[in-house]
């Protein structure tokens, strides 16, 4: 009985149970969080992006099919729905900040939501991207759990949508200060709200680390954008894709 043989047996046993997928997912996310903290919360070192990179390379390296990985990791994936419902809590907390500013905020939300869709789908189409790619661009400014729900409803890939949403959040968190300074934006609530519309959760946590008022408005914008987009995007999508 060789030692190699028994390792293979253990491996076969472990990869057949959800344990392995759960372990690498959580471990990769923990590594991502540690790198993020060590980099003083630099948006480039986004823990989700790092975790995706580690898990994707690992399953490629050990030649584990994605379907096998997902079978185990689906227990984490399932919680997305519950997490979406729990977004009600930050929205409820932000509702009191809406008072007296509801007109500029709602107008800003509708403009930002539309500009996000038209510019992303427009640029991608002009540069000749596949239909499956442009379709997944529609909900990319929406917080990923809701964006994936929308993607399922309109029949585009939730995976591509999640990738685009995470990339948008990272890009938004990096670029927002430059854009807002170039426009001479001074009020924290306006800056925060714009970040929440353009860069959802990742932008929101960046906004909170800069100024609490910006963070509150960013999370309100993220929540409102999620709900409004869930209603509007299927309508807009079918309008453009008859």
């Amino acid at each position, binding site marked *: 009985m060789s030692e190699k043989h028994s390792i293979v047996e253990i491996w076969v046993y472990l990869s057949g149970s959800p344990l392995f997928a759960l372990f690498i997912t959580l471990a990769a996310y923990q590594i991502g969080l540690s790198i993020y903290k060590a980099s003083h919360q630099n948006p480039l070192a986004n823990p989700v992006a790092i975790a995706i990179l580690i898990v*994707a390379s690992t399953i490629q390296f050990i030649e584990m099919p*994605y379907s096998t990985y997902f079978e185990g*990791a689906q227990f984490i*994936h399932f919680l997305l*729905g*519950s997490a979406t419902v729990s977004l009600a*809590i930050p929205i409820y907390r932000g509702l009191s900040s809406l008072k007296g500013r509801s007109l500029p905020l709602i107008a800003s939300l509708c403009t930002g939501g539309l500009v996000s869709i038209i510019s992303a789908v427009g640029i991608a189409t002009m540069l000749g991207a596949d239909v499956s790619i442009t379709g997944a661009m529609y909900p990319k*400014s929406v917080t990923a759990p809701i964006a994936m729900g929308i993607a399922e409803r309109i029949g585009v890939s939730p995976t591509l949508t999640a990738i*685009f949403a995470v990339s948008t959040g990272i890009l938004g968190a990096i670029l927002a200060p430059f854009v807002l300074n170039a426009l001479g934006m001074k009020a924290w609530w*306006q800056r925060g709200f714009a970040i929440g519309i353009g860069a959802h959760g990742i932008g929101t946590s960046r906004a909170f680390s800069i100024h609490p008022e910006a963070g509150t408005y960013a999370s309100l914008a993220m929540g409102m954008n999620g709900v409004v987009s869930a209603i509007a995007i299927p309508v807009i999508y079918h309008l453009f894709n008859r």
Partner: protein
Amino acid sequence: MIFGLVQILLFQSLGELVSKFLLPTLPGPVIGLVLLVLWLVLRKGINSDLAMVGDGFSQYLGLLFVPAAVGVVLFLPQLKANALAIISALIGSVILTIGSSALVARLLSKKESHE
């Protein structure tokens, strides 16, 4: 904490039911979210169990979409073939989105900003 989870799962189930029978275009969890906001507005407050579960979810929200996003391994050739279009669209769109929403918010609240 368990009571918080019970409330979240209850509203999620209500949302799924409404989605299945009344509003099939809306994802169930989003309906659950709206119902929960309405419930909190009616009750005028969040109980501590619910706050605890909600804060836990929002703190580690990113972890939950890792399994689906790892599916990127299935799309690598397609992403490579469209790399330029994707990167330009994402960067262009995020700048335009943040810029336009900021400008509209400032434009419509001119009075307040002069205070």
